[in-house]
């Protein structure tokens, strides 16, 4: 069985006890759903607190006098300009400005940064960063941590009851509240929430307290996907890939004007050319009419039947109460309310371009 090759979460026994159904994702055996089911898990996260084991993702610590220089080459990011505790969403780019991975980088000290990388890309990211670090005063250190996401309007209150105070931490900031802990106020649901990296023993103690709180429920990867899709957030390998650049993906908000002008990062020239010319297609939200979901890989057509684009993520949005999707369409069509059509098993489904996110972000910004 291929299952034997899958990596196992350090806390797998807790998920088994909770009745999780597992499935493969990015080389890991991951909890997909719990007995409550994806709808209830999704809704619970929006209303109370969803608890996610995301230990498949990788924390990478960069330490050294030239750590900021390394980041400034690997990412379209002025790491030196980050304030202590500040986090930024950024990417590793190739020389064609294709997105190798999307990351969150947090400044932990004058010469120390934490990178959170996607599970499926972690090894390649490490190799890439190590290659760039050659000859620089910077160590690249992957950390063995349990990583938990605590998401939803009551996340701060549940953490507080569990003895983890979050009061001064605001959205897109990160701290080290205890030895070998790393906590950011961020997430992948569109809700207020936190991600905490910590040693397994500490994680088990924290979970005992968190799960004793009735507001806190385990949430699996299936609801994590529907939550992030409603929030308009990209999944690397699906919505963004090494063939897609940040301009085409509509993610240039993550690349400051100064960084663009200085052009220090790998892919800067290619990205400048794409921006100057204008990308030929753009990432958009897509709202299928009716109830039938339109899935990743579905082709989109205009009224006259010409190819217009394709869907990269699609499913059902429990909070929206209907199907939601995102994908790429030719730039002239990338305007809200443009009507396109998807062909799903011979049925022509009207699909309207829709602003992202589908559900309002509720981040705690200060």
């Amino acid at each position: 069985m291929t299952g034997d090759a899958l990596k196992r979460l350090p806390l797998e026994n807790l998920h088994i006890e909770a009745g999780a159904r597992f499935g493969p994702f990015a080389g890991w055996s991951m909890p997909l759903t719990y007995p409550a089911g994806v709808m209830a898990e999704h809704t619970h996260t929006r209303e109370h607190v969803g608890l996610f084991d995301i230990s498949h993702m990788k924390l990478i610590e960069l330490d050294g006098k030239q750590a900021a220089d390394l980041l400034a080459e690997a990412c379209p990011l002025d790491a030196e300009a980050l304030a202590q505790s500040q986090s930024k969403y950024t990417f590793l780019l190739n020389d064609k400005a294709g997105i190798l991975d999307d990351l969150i980088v947090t400044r932990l000290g004058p010469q120390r940064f934490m990178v959170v990388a996607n599970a499926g890309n972690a090894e390649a990211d490490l190799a890439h960063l190590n290659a760039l670090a050659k000859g620089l005063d910077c160590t690249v250190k992957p950390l063995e941590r349990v990583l938990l996401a605590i998401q939803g309007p009551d996340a701060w209150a549940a953490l507080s009851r569990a003895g983890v105070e979050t009061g001064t931490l605001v959205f897109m900031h990160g701290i080290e509240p205890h030895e070998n802990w790393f906590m950011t106020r961020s997430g992948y649901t569109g809700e207020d929430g936190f991600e905490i990296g910590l040693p397994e023993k500490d994680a088990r103690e924290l979970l005992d307290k968190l799960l004793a709180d009735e507001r806190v429920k385990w949430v699996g990867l299936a609801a994590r996907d529907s939550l992030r899709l409603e929030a308009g957030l990209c999944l690397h390998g699906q919505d963004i890939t090494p063939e897609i650049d940040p301009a085409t993906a509509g993610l240039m908000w993550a690349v400051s004007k100064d960084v663009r002008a200085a052009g220090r990062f790998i892919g800067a020239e290619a990205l400048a050319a794409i921006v100057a010319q204008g990308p030929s297609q753009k990432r958009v939200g897509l709202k299928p009419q009716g109830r039938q979901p339109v899935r990743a890989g579905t082709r989109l057509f205009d009224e006259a039947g010409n190819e217009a684009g394709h869907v990269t993520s699609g499913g059902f949005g429990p909070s929206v109460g209907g199907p939601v999707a995102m994908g790429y369409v030719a730039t002239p069509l990338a305007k809200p309310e443009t009507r396109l059509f998807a062909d799903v098993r011979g049925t022509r489904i009207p699909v309207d371009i829709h602003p992202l996110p589908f559900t309002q972000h509720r981040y705690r910004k200060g």
Partner: protein
Amino acid sequence: MAKLYFTDDHEWLSVENGVATVGITDYAQEQLGDLVFVDLPEAGRALKKGDVAVVVESVKAASDVYAPVDGEIIEANQALGSEPALVNSAATTDGWLWKMKLADEGQLSGLLDEAGYKALIG
């Protein structure tokens, strides 16, 4: 009196007077999770055993439901159009998928009975 059959694709058939009512089993709906859409077939469609009769869609994925025997669809469960979750809450009763007129009742002998199906899912 209707007679009950099962398939190893986790479907059930309730057969009476040459007509089978077909649905998925409780085990199958649990595996699929919350259904959000059922792509219902048109009445009058002729099916060969193994043809895709219905597509059921969960939040995450679309899954095919196959015709367990040859026949012609005479009715689809229209209630699922507005309430696909009936398949989750009542898989073997109100959550039926379609009714078909059997082409060859002899094919039924190749299906499982309830005891055989229970043995299959353990």
